[in-house]
């Protein structure tokens, strides 16, 4: 069954959770609410531990918030609750959503359900694992540079990041506010349409939120669609990715789509632009965790020492790397050459993608650099930043994007990504429903992982 029943969900939790280390808090089955009304009644949701669910933990997988419990519901949670969704777990993640492999959680790494020697991707690696292993009907993650989509690719599920602003960020721990967006992960894109119908739309508690573009089911055939492919990406793909990309492209051609090549000369500037903007915003957003307001406090002689010792002791290594880089790029010496420059290139990238969509309906790209790597192969921190090469542009340009399972290599899933014009989220989700029906889907992926 693609969407597991309540009984199966708890069976799967018993069987897999301890091995995969995917959750930080489980609501026991006998304490889980029953909801018999609302458009989404019967659905059980797992939530990344940077989204507030009243009464449950909100640690961000960090020691600095290890004893913190949410005192209110995030808007996305409130809207789901109103329509009958219940919440069964808080999910492990890279600390403060900073990472691409889920190896930076203070509570230990999350393991890939298809091969426990491999990473699940990150930072919403736990959310991808919970969805793939059927430990919830669907999960929520957050996506700042690909954190929902890249793990979806590595775990064989669907991972969707809406247009920036379509989902409220109220109650979501801020990492890089101009890039952050709540995302969905599930074994099928069909339920995403119903969930987005409920969850999307303007929220007076988040001034960057916007009206819902509307979500409903409709037939969206491949025939007649114009699919863009980026010239520079074709030259950069590793063999597994190139094979899957070709297979997916051929499916579109065979079904009557037109393929149009696009030129993205700034593609190799995506990583530096993202590093500068995201770390600058993170250094500011994480200043609130100072040992005084709502975080763990280290012993100290005075206030400044309390700040620095608490942050030095309880933040993890990757979070510190990003705060320090962010502080550096915002310093007087570097502001123009790094922060201002990055912000200007972001404008160029934003305009570049808008111009793409004057000629194409969707852009097809890889989602990850390869299948999931093994823990023992862990690259250095700087090399890891390049894992998000294909997913970052959607965040920089505030576009909707979805990763769908497309292939299996060496018994491991691999996804592909489709990006759409701003606010064309409904078209994108319905188009991926067509792909699920005609080309590839979660069940086919499972069969191939087991029998390839």
């Amino acid at each position, binding site marked *: 069954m693609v969407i597991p029943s309540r009984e199966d969900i708890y069976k799967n939790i018993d069987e897999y959770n301890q091995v995969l280390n995917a959750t930080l808090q489980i609501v026991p089955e006998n304490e889980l609410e029953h909801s018999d009304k609302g458009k989404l009644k019967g659905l059980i949701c797992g939530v990344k531990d940077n989204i507030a669910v009243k009464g449950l933990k909100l640690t961000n997988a960090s020691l600095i918030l290890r004893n913190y419990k949410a005192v209110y519901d995030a808007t996305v949670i409130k809207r789901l609750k109103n329509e009958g969704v219940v919440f069964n777990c808080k999910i492990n993640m890279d600390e403060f959503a900073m990472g691409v492999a889920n190896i930076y959680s203070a509570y230990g790494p999350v393991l890939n359900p298809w091969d426990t020697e491999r990473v699940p991707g990150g930072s919403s690696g736990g959310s991808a694992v919970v969805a793939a292993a059927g430990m919830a009907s669907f999960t929520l993650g957050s996506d700042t540079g690909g954190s929902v989509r890249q793990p979806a690719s590595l775990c064989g599920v669907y991972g969707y990041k809406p247009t*920036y*602003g379509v989902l409220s960020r109220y109650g979501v721990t801020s990492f890089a506010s*101009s890039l952050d967006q709540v995302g969905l992960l599930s074994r099928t894109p069909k339920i995403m349409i119903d969930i987005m119908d409920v969850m999307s739309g*303007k929220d*007076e508690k988040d*001034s*960057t*939120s*916007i009206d819902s573009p509307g979500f409903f089911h409709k037939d969206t055939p491949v025939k007649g669609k114009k699919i863009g492919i980026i010239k520079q990406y074709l030259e950069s793909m590793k063999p597994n990715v190139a094979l899957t990309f070709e297979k997916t492209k051929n499916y579109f051609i065979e079904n009557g789509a037109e393929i149009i090549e696009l030129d993205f000369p*700034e593609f*190799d*500037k995506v*990583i*530096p*632009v993202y*590093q*500068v903007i995201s770390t600058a915003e993170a*250094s500011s957003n994480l*200043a609130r965790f*100072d040992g005084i307001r709502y975080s763990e406090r280290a012993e100290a002689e005075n206030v*400044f*020492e309390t*700040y*620095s*010792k608490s*942050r*030095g*002791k309880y*933040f993890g290594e990757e979070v*510190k*790397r990003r*705060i*320090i*880089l*962010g*502080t*550096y*790029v915002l*310093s007087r010496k570097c502001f123009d*050459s*790094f922060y*201002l*420059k*990055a*912000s*200007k*290139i*972001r*404008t*160029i990238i*934003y305009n570049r993608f808008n111009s793409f969509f004057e000629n194409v309906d969707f852009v097809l790209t890889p989602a990850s650099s390869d299948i999931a790597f093994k823990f023992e192969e862990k690259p*250095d*921190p*700087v090399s890891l930043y390049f894992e998000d090469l294909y997913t970052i542009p959607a965040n920089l340009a*505030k576009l909707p994007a979805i990763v769908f399972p497309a292939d299996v290599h060496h018994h491991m899933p691999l996804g592909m990504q489709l990006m759409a014009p701003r606010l064309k989220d409904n078209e994108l989700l319905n188009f991926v429903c067509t792909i699920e029906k005609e080309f590839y889907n979660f069940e086919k992926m499972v069969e191939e992982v087991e029998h390839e």
Partner: protein
Amino acid sequence: MSLTIKEVSEIYKLAAISADANEMEKMKAHIDALIPILDEMEKVDTEGVIPFFELSESLETVDFEPALSESSKDIIDAFTQKEDDYLVVKKVVDKGE
């Protein structure tokens, strides 16, 4: 360009994060490895381009009228000391101290 340990130490101070010499050395190596990647941005001609934070603000930020609840109004009305639009409260921190 590479950073000196003194500069790294200053950045730690600005970020309000304590660290020992070993951690600072490692951080210096990390930032030194990243700087050439960030320097790549120099190659893009951005003459006349508006920074995204300005573009974004004009495109997407929605202004909301701050709404005061009835109870908030009651609290403000009940305040004993006011000067123009400000509520007068007891001094907590004295700069001279």
